[in-house]
């Protein structure tokens, strides 16, 4: 991967953020039907990526030039992992790649969850919203002043439990046969309230789920940070194609977010 390294080194040595560059795929595997975990070797992203930050991925097909942004799910040494769903032809192409293949990426992009305050971070993920929360668990595991409680909801298979289990202090998960993440939050409400550390919710998932989580948090006055998704044009804030309405106006999901507080979004 001399090429990718040369581009990154040139940018960094001139004081700039690395542009799009080519990296090697170290590992790729299907976790569940249509759910893929991909690991790339990228020292720069590995060194700088924080939970809820994402990376632009580019297909090898010039007919599909737009970036596909994926949230970082784990970082180990130079290796950075992602979990994504095969939702179209672009992600379908990614799923066909093999370890040793190369891929173009750019990142890390966006703002991370704020996990500076000592807290019991409640990591609430739905479906393919799991990556930033696995990464948050990993990040918080390195912080002796905080702990994490994973609350993961799935449609069917609990495909990400084994990854978040590596780092979270507690993992609760549920699938549609039994309920959703709010079902779980209700169950553990007393536990969260009685803990030594104040709970802070970090969440990512489908919009209705996140709104329900924000509402649950609002009623209990628990701080809540939400990582949004939107169709993006660039991922780094130049095109203003991925916006969300906030109390401060229409903001860019990629560069002003993807993390917004419940208050910023005005979700009750």
């Amino acid at each position, binding site marked *: 991967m001399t090429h990718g390294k040369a*581009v990154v080194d040139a940018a960094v040595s001139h004081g700039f953020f690395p542009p799009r560059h080519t990296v090697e795929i170290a590992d790729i595997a299907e976790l569940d039907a249509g759910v893929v975990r991909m690991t790339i070797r990228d020292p720069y992203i590995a060194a700088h990526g924080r939970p809820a930050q994402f990376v632009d991925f580019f297909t090898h097909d010039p007919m599909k030039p737009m970036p596909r942004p994926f949230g970082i799910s784990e970082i180990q040494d130079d290796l950075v992992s992602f979990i994504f769903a095969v939702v179209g032809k672009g992600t379908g192409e990614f799923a066909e790649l093999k370890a040793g293949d190369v891929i173009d990426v750019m990142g890390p992009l966006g703002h991370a969850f704020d996990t500076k305050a000592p807290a019991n971070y409640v990591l609430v993920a739905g479906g393919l919203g799991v990556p930033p929360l696995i990464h948050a668990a990993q990040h918080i595991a390195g912080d002796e002043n905080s702990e994490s409680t994973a609350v993961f909801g799935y449609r069917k298979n609990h495909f990400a439990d084994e990854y978040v289990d590596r780092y979270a202090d507690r993992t609760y998960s549920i699938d549609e046969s039994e309920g959703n993440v709010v079902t779980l939050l209700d169950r553990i409400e007393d536990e969260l309230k009685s803990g030594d550390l104040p709970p802070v919710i970090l969440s990512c998932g489908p919009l209705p789920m996140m709104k329900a989580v924000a509402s649950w948090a609002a009623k209990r006055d628990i701080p809540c940070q939400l990582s949004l998704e939107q169709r993006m044009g660039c991922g780094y804030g130049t095109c203003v194609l991925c916006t969300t309405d906030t109390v401060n106006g229409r903001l860019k999901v990629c560069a002003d977010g993807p993390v917004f507080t419940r208050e910023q979004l005005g979700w009750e």
Partner: protein
Amino acid sequence: MSMTATAANPETETVDLYDHEWKHPTVVAGVPWKNPVGTASGTFQYAAVRWFYDVSQLGAVTTKGVSPVPWEGNPGVRTAEGPACNINAVGLQNPGVDHYLVDDLPKLKKIGANVVSNVAGHCDDDYAEVVAKLADSPADMLEINVSCPNVGAGGMSVGADPVALSRLITRLRKMTDKPMIVKLTPNVTDITVPARAAVEAGADALSLINTIVGMRINTRTGKPIIDHVTGGVSGPAVLPIGLARVWQVRSALPDIPIIGIGGIDTGEKALEYLYAGANAVEVGAAALFDPVAPLRVACELDDLLDDRPELAAKLAEGKTWR
């Protein structure tokens, strides 16, 4: 086949990107550009791009269109992908000219960038209000975006109505001595008609093409992907269309400076525009797919011009190939 062959010109993305010494300047409407490559309006936000390279290295930086007051743009999904293109429906979201005058513009001038300030409006008064404020600013050139829907043109873009366009540019011309570029829409029957109208009303230069109206549909829902339904197509797919429009305008107006836009993502494609009669080019959608694309195009073009001394000499004198 090499897997990297389809990546963003990896073979040319070397360290030279950051240490290039410019050999071939151009002149657009009397304004010197250190190279013939600028950014296209709407794809450049200084706050986003500044992290990736020294934007003062470009021939020019064209900033996002500014309106008299902040505009929120369109709600919901604003973009879709097409074959080799992007479709965008931002709706000209911007924080307004007052913010621009205290934020992006002074920051860009401080680093020495050659700034083209793009102006947007929904009526003649909008444009006039912005131009009045920019007239006394350190902006190097103004670019009037006449593709916005305009109440003075019955909701159509003023660029598609030569009478409305002439009226608007005549008015703006009286307000400033700054070099004024009119950015033309390709969504017209004969682009030489608005081109001529703009020039006769006092435009110092023309830039073209703006985006082409397009859309995609989600075949799972049967509904348009973009909430606004249609958007503007840009990216590699529009190259032949942009080239033809530049060729047509250059044929009709031999002397007006032209900035070619549309589908440029390599120095070689920029060169096609120069041969079609452009004095300079702007790189748009390519910057969405790689922030350094405009700089890379500028470096590639600079090297390609080494072998084309006749063309390079014409550009340096403010003349063109055709």
